[in-house]
């Protein structure tokens, strides 16, 4: 079997699973609904590991699968490129997907949409693989929009919930704003290079430097324009401010997909995109600074919001936003491999946090309010331990995976000299405190303290979820626990074992382009003396102690319940409105759109065009035809008949007249 066929199988297997289950899932016995996708996604995962093995040994696969179309001199193709960057993404995507497939067996067990759900997550796996394996911008865009589609379908999975169908439309439309920029970027690439193939574009990318482009009467650098447009696409998918508004709402979807799509894989597509186009982005310091600043704002301000959330999934969602901000910061300081590294470790511990949250939600009988939880460590020990491990990884506890990736990013920002790096450094370092505070707040409230659901006011509402005061939560079955444990292992260890190859070797760097004048990453590499040394060294640095401070504050506030800080009213208000982004969209942007539509329709179309011009001329004609009213029968067929006859006469007259 050729490598091409093998690589084609990787995305095709989940697609086949999706189609089979989507079309016949309800006819087949229920067990097939999860068995077929799991087996095929497992196959995909194993082949992805094989692809990683091959590319690790230095073979970059790049071939076209088929010709999509030919237009004039342009050929557009569908094909695969598998280098280390791609192979790493493929492995992460298929692994997390596999875990989520298994976990779903229990989580969605009694849902009437059981087979539909499996069909969707397999379809997602296919789309995400097409996105990362692409060897051109066209297919990248296909995967990009296809994951958006599946995200739309899954956020709105419970289509009866008004909040869910609001959230999924919002997610799709906000992403479309990003795609709008992305598509323009792709069109500019086509305009300049005449091809969308990565290899050809990147091989001629140096000719781009210094190209000017006329825009609004002034000339701008073409490479900056392309970079910023592509980054706008990344901002949509990777939920960077101000296009982040869809991600917290996406929590309306079932928890397994929050883990898979809205934490581990799809939202990191933007990070992957910018890394992939590093040869272009590197040429524009303006674009890099913009990326850096957007990332910093997201990392810091979204983290702060996480402190004020009471829905367990929303806390984790804001944490995801903040961590995506960290990855974007790494992109901004030209440390693409570090962004990928954080993406990699984050995929494990954030998926674990979400699946842990899901386990808690099952235990609490679908109550997501943390103010009804407490002391769950007693009832759900495995969830508790794994959740704690994920929390430690997230806050950057030395030796845990998250520590290595986040600490290297902070280091890189420190060495960077690009405009905005001092603000980014502040945001990244202060963000460590924020991360620690919201993470331990969540941890203490959920797993320690009193059992709050027991003194919950009694509700007589039938539809209310949650435990009654005399019930106790309990751990669920092995299909939930197994993924938790399998994800906990890499959450703890993988950073320790992979930092060396990522920082020291050319494993990722050979697929990335970094300008020699952008020194941040090479400085990090220079100061790196092994993972143990790095962890020990960190004990004497500011970020570590800020993390400890965050822990202490959370401990006092939420474990000891000592309220030594009072949130000022104004701050509380700003936090409740989440800085007002949603309000702006809902009370200003949306009504303005409707207003404009109505004005154009009712005034332009109806009043001016129809009433004045069309009916006006009809009336004028009526005036003249007053005399001929007798022959107006009102039957359009007769009009048509008269018209044809008239035309024939007209033609005859003209031609005969012309001849004679």
């Amino acid at each position, binding site marked *: 079997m050729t490598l091409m066929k093998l690589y084609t199988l990787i995305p095709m297997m989940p697609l086949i699973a999706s189609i089979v289950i989507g079309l016949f899932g309800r006819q087949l016995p229920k067990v097939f609904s999860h068995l077929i996708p799991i087996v095929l996604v497992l196959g995909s995962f194993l082949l992805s590991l094989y692809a990683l093995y091959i590319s690790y040994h230095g073979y970059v696969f790049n071939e076209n699968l088929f010709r999509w179309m*030919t237009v004039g001199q342009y050929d557009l193709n569908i094909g695969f490129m598998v280098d280390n960057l791609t192979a790493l993404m493929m492995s992460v995507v298929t692994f997390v997907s596999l875990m989520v497939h298994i976990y779903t067996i229990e989580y969605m067990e009694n849902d009437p949409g059981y087979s539909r759900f499996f069909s969707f997550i397999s379809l997602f796996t296919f789309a995400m693989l097409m996105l990362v394996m692409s060897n051109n911008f066209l297919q990248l865009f296909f995967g990009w929009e296809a994951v958006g*589609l599946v995200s739309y379908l899954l956020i709105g999975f419970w289509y009866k919930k008004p909040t869910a169908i609001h959230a999924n439309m919002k997610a799709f439309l906000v992403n479309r704003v990003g795609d709008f920029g992305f598509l323009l970027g792709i*069109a500019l690439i086509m305009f300049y290079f005449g091809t969308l193939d990565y290899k050809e574009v990147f091989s001629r990318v140096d000719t781009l430097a210094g190209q000017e482009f006329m825009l609004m009467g002034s000339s701008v650098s073409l490479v900056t324009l392309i970079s910023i447009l592509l980054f706008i696409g990344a901002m949509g998918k990777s939920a960077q401010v101000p296009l982040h508004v869809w991600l917290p709402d996406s929590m309306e979807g079932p928890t397994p997909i929050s883990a898979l799509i809205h934490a581990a894989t799809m939202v990191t597509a933007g990070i992957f995109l910018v890394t992939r186009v590093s040869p272009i982005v590197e040429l524009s310091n303006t674009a890099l600074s913009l990326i850096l600043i957007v990332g910093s704002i997201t990392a810091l301000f979204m983290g702060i919001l996480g402190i004020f959330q009471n829905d367990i999934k929303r806390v984790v969602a804001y944490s995801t936003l903040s961590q995506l901000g960290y990855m974007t910061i790494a992109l901004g300081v030209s440390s693409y491999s570090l962004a990928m590294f954080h993406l990699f470790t984050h995929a494990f511990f954030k998926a674990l946090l979400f699946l842990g949250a899901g386990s808690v939600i099952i235990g609490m009988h679908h109550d997501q309010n943390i103010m009804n939880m407490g002391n769950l460590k007693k009832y759900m020990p495995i969830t508790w331990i794994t959740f704690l491990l994920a929390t430690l990884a997230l806050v950057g506890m030395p030796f845990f995976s998250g520590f290595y990736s986040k600490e290297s990013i902070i280091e890189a920002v420190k060495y960077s000299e690009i405009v905005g790096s001092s603000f980014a450094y502040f945001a990244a370092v202060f963000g460590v405190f924020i991360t620690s505070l919201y993470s331990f707040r969540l941890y203490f409230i959920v797993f320690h303290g009193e059992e709050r659901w027991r003194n919950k006011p009694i509700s007589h509402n039938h539809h209310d979820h949650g435990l009654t005061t005399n019930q106790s939560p309990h751990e669920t079955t092995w299909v939930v626990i197994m993924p938790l444990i399998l994800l906990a292992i890499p959450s703890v260890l993988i950073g320790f074992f992979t930092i060396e190859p990522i920082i020291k070797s050319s494993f990722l760097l050979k697929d990335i382009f970094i300008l020699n004048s952008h020194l941040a990453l090479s400085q990090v590499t220079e100061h790196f003396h092994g993972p143990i040394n790095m962890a020990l060294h960190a004990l004497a640095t500011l970020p570590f102690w800020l993390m400890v401070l965050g822990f202490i504050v959370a401990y006092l506030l939420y474990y000891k319940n000592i309220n030594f800080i009072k949130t000022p009213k104004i701050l509380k208000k700003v936090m409740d409105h989440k800085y007002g982004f949603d309000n702006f969209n809902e009370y200003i942007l949306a009504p303005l759109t409707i207003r*404009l539509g109505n004005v154009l329709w009712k005034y332009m*179309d109806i009043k001016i065009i129809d009433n004045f011009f069309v009916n006006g001329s009809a009336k004028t004609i009526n005036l003249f035809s007053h005399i001929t009213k007798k022959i107006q029968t009102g039957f359009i067929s007769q009009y*048509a008949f008269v018209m044809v006859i008239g035309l024939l006469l007209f033609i005859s007259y003209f031609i005969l007249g012309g001849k004679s």
Partner: protein
Amino acid sequence: MTGILSIAIWTPIIFGIILLLVQDKLSTTLTYRLGNLFGFISFLVTLPLYIYFDKGFSGFQFQEIYPWINHFSINYHLGLDGISLPLVLLTSFISWLVIFISSNSIQRAIGFYISAFLILSGLMIGVFLALDAILYYVFWEAMLIPMFLLIGIWGGPNRVYATIKFFLYTVLGSLLMLVAFLYLYNQTASFAILDFYTKPLSLNIQVLIFLAFFMAFAVKIPMWPVHTWLPDAHVEAPTGGSVILAAIMLKLGGYSFIRFAMPISPDALIFLKPFLIGLSLIAIVYIAFVAIVQTDMKKLIAYSSISHMGFVTLGLFILNPLGFEGGYVQMISHGFISAALFFAIGVLYERMHSRNISDYKGVINSMPIFGSFFVLFAMANSGLPGTSGFVGEFLVILGAMQDHFWIAFFASLTLIFGATYSLWLVKRIIFGEVKNKKIAALKDLNGKEFFVMSVLALMTLAIGIYPALITDITNQSSQVMLGLIQQSKIL
């Protein structure tokens, strides 16, 4: 292979006449079955056009030429190239689907209804195949008669206003087109379109000719600001009429731009390009806003069609290969997607007798299969990659960028607004809790409806995944056409 073009045109017309004659003597069921068989055969006879078509040959194939009115050198001249072939297949295929599903909705005079569609189908194919201006003109005008009848007899309550509006708009344009043909005849002493292509003309004359054509074709496609007949016609037309109107009749405008206006007056085209692009962009953006606020779902899709046709005209008038091919693919793609959406609205209308969006909510609860199809077509309508809706928009945006950044910028806004009206429609109709008992009692698609939706879905996906299906046919001919346009005709 001569003769297959005539067969493609006259088979449905003759069948239509036969059906018209025998319908009184047959029961309704039998009439439907016979009509359906006729429709299917009429579709089958167009398949040889595709099978024997030579993709590598850029000229006209299977030409037939017989003298018709010798005195004025008017010929019965037919020919097929890559531009007309996909449209012919689309016409015969969609016409058959409309006939196939007619038994669901039409109780009154079904034989008459089906024969109107058969005749209409033949006449439209005639428009796509005619290479003689007068022959073309006869098909073009004759086609209006069955369409008027369809709206006038099976239409809604306000059908008289809608037909008259349609009539006024169309007649005004057609007459000017005829004047242009007669002028060209005076110049070339021929009605052969190919002779028109080579005739040198001064810029002033070209501009006048272009504007005469423009009045006819811009109304048909329709372009802003001569578009207001379309929503009214759609609202009043029966489901089948809407499907044919959106899927094929609008394309007659686009096709005719390619066949006449562009190659006959290329210098005028370049001269008027900014104006034409401006109108196209207005259609794309302005009409999208209008579509967002519609409360009648048929009107919403009608406005969406106008916005999509804005992409067609933008692509054609941007005058480069990417735009041209994109505009063309958009026509074919819109043929399938708009047909599916109008069928879908018909499915709902037959069950609920309302087109008001606010009367619906949570349809997917009682009609899960229908709901899935609707989501798919709404996504296709908003240009999702993997569906045919993406291909045209993508190419047109790439083409627009070659011309100017801001043109691409405004055209790309459709990504946002197209998704807004499509998905908001889905949210209000398909998703949510069941609104009332009527919706709870809805029955999902029956066998015929399922078949129609499935084949349209398959076509939409097939073109989206492998657009070379179409572009391999059109590639040679579009290069010829673009070549003609780029050659100045000023002496």
